[in-house]
């Protein structure tokens, strides 16, 4: 509308400046720090070139971390992408009553702090006296030590995230579901199409752009949400069994005080994220039906 770039710059300045200082400058600084060996306090920073990277790529730790990350992502995709998708369809197009009650109730946990969620589930999963243990004992099952066993710990943490995020993602999906014109579905029902056919032939293609958005935030934010329970409940343990690409950056910086290694992991993680976003934009978005 107006081409006065000077004025435009004034409006963008507050946000732009803060973004530059607190988001983009750190990215550069990571790249810089990743070339040094440093412990964050000592006045000496030793230039080591690409050594931090070569050590990381040679260590078995990286592969364990990557495997954990993939596991986290897969489980969270089920809990926070597939299930919300199905539930939003049921809520948007199958049931005819009570849907606003369901919506409100299912959304409720999204408003709570992950710190609260973590402490709640720590108690629920408590293997000695927690409620889940009691329920398991009804079936004469013994409660495993949820946060102390390899793989199981990842599942347990994912359920915390699942509990917190399910409702949010479902609401976002629901927005797309109800945006599908009712006439289309009624037309299909006149042809005696089953719910399954309607889901596959109408809903799936028409909600795909939002689905991709939810898919993306599930992967991108899921790994960040994981930080809170991991840090509160396991500190990455047992034996790095619940660490992942995002958490390891924190560990190296603030637990092991190896700034260079942390920065190198930060660079690697950032590259992975950008790759993911790039691939998503390039390949997934193309197959999507956009209304406009």
């Amino acid at each position: 509308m107006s081409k006065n770039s000077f004025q435009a710059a004034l409006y963008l300045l507050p946000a732009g400046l803060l973004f530059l200082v607190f988001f983009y400058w750190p990215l550069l600084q990571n790249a810089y720090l990743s070339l040094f060996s440093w412990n964050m306090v000592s006045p000496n920073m030793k230039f080591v070139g690409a050594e931090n990277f070569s050590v990381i790529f040679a260590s078995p730790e990286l592969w364990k971390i990557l495997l954990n990350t993939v596991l986290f992502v897969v489980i969270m995709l089920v809990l926070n992408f597939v299930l919300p998708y199905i539930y939003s369809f049921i809520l948007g197009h199958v049931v005819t009553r009570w849907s606003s009650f369901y919506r409100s109730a299912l959304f409720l946990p999204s408003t709570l702090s992950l710190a609260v969620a973590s402490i709640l589930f720590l108690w629920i999963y408590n293997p000695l006296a927690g409620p889940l243990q009691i329920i398991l004992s009804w079936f004469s099952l013994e409660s495993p030590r949820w946060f102390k066993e390899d793989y199981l710990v990842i599942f347990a943490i994912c359920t915390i995230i699942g509990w917190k995020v399910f409702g949010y993602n479902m609401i976002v999906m629901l927005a797309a579901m109800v945006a599908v014109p009712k006439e289309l579905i009624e037309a299909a029902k006149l042809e005696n199409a089953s719910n399954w056919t309607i889901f596959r032939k109408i809903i799936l293609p028409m909600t795909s752009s939002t689905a991709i958005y939810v898919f993306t935030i599930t992967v991108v934010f899921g790994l960040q949400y994981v930080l809170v329970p991991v840090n509160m409940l396991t500190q990455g343990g047992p034996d790095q069994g619940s660490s992942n690409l995002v958490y390891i950056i924190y560990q190296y910086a603030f637990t092991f005080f190896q700034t260079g290694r942390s920065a190198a992991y930060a660079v690697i993680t950032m590259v992975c994220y950008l790759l993911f976003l790039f691939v998503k934009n390039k390949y997934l978005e193309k197959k999507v039906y956009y209304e406009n």
Partner: protein
Amino acid sequence: MKTNLASWRDEWGYHLLLLIAVFLMLWPIVFMLSTSLKDLNQVFESTLNPLPFPPTFDNYTNVLENFPLLTYIWNTFYIAIIVTLSKALTSVLAAFGFVYYDFKYKETIFNGMLLTFFIPITVLIMPNYLLMAKLGLLDTPYGVMLPSLVDGMGVFLMRQTMRGIPKPLLEAAILDGATPWQILRKVVLPLIKPSVLAISILFFINSWNEYFWPLLILQDKSNLTLPLALQMFISAEGGSEWGVAMAVATLTSLPPLVLYGFCQKFIINTFMQAGVKG
């Protein structure tokens, strides 16, 4: 026309699925509330009973006496309110810049702002921590606030909302000789007020719930926020503090729950908008 009965017959299976989900979602919250109202015996003897009998407020008085809880509440609130105001302000200003003006690299700059939304927080924490240390802001609320004063999603959502304003409205104001600032204040802001309010509520809840960044910055016990204070009760794992822990958890959850209770429709609508891509 389907009769009521027929629709029940068709749908009961789906309602069952939904009710199971509702149960799984709500049970931990009910459980948190009820445990916080139980005394030590009840916590372990009747763990699953959702109705504490008799309910006791011992856990709450205990917390209030032994911890500077009011200080924590104030700390959390102080940070959340400033973060919220700043995020809302910077988002609205930037969004207006994008909607009202045409300039070179507009899309690139916008995408650059939106991208920050996807940068994982741990990638940023170490450099930002070093910066806060340099500025002498460690262990202060300002160190917590500073990197949280903008929000990429905020800019995105505000731009979406402003784009929804019919162009002739802005043009009519322009013809009347309104300056961009007047247009923002007298035309745009009144029109998008509900969205600004809704997103501010979200900003507030998110900041209130924030755990990770404050954890790094705040050290002194008197500076902590509520989610950080929760951490203190975990060291007693397997111990006997569950009732107290649940009381603090309940207090931490109360403001978001109350806000949600009052502004449910607002919040859900904004969340729903967030998913609609632009």
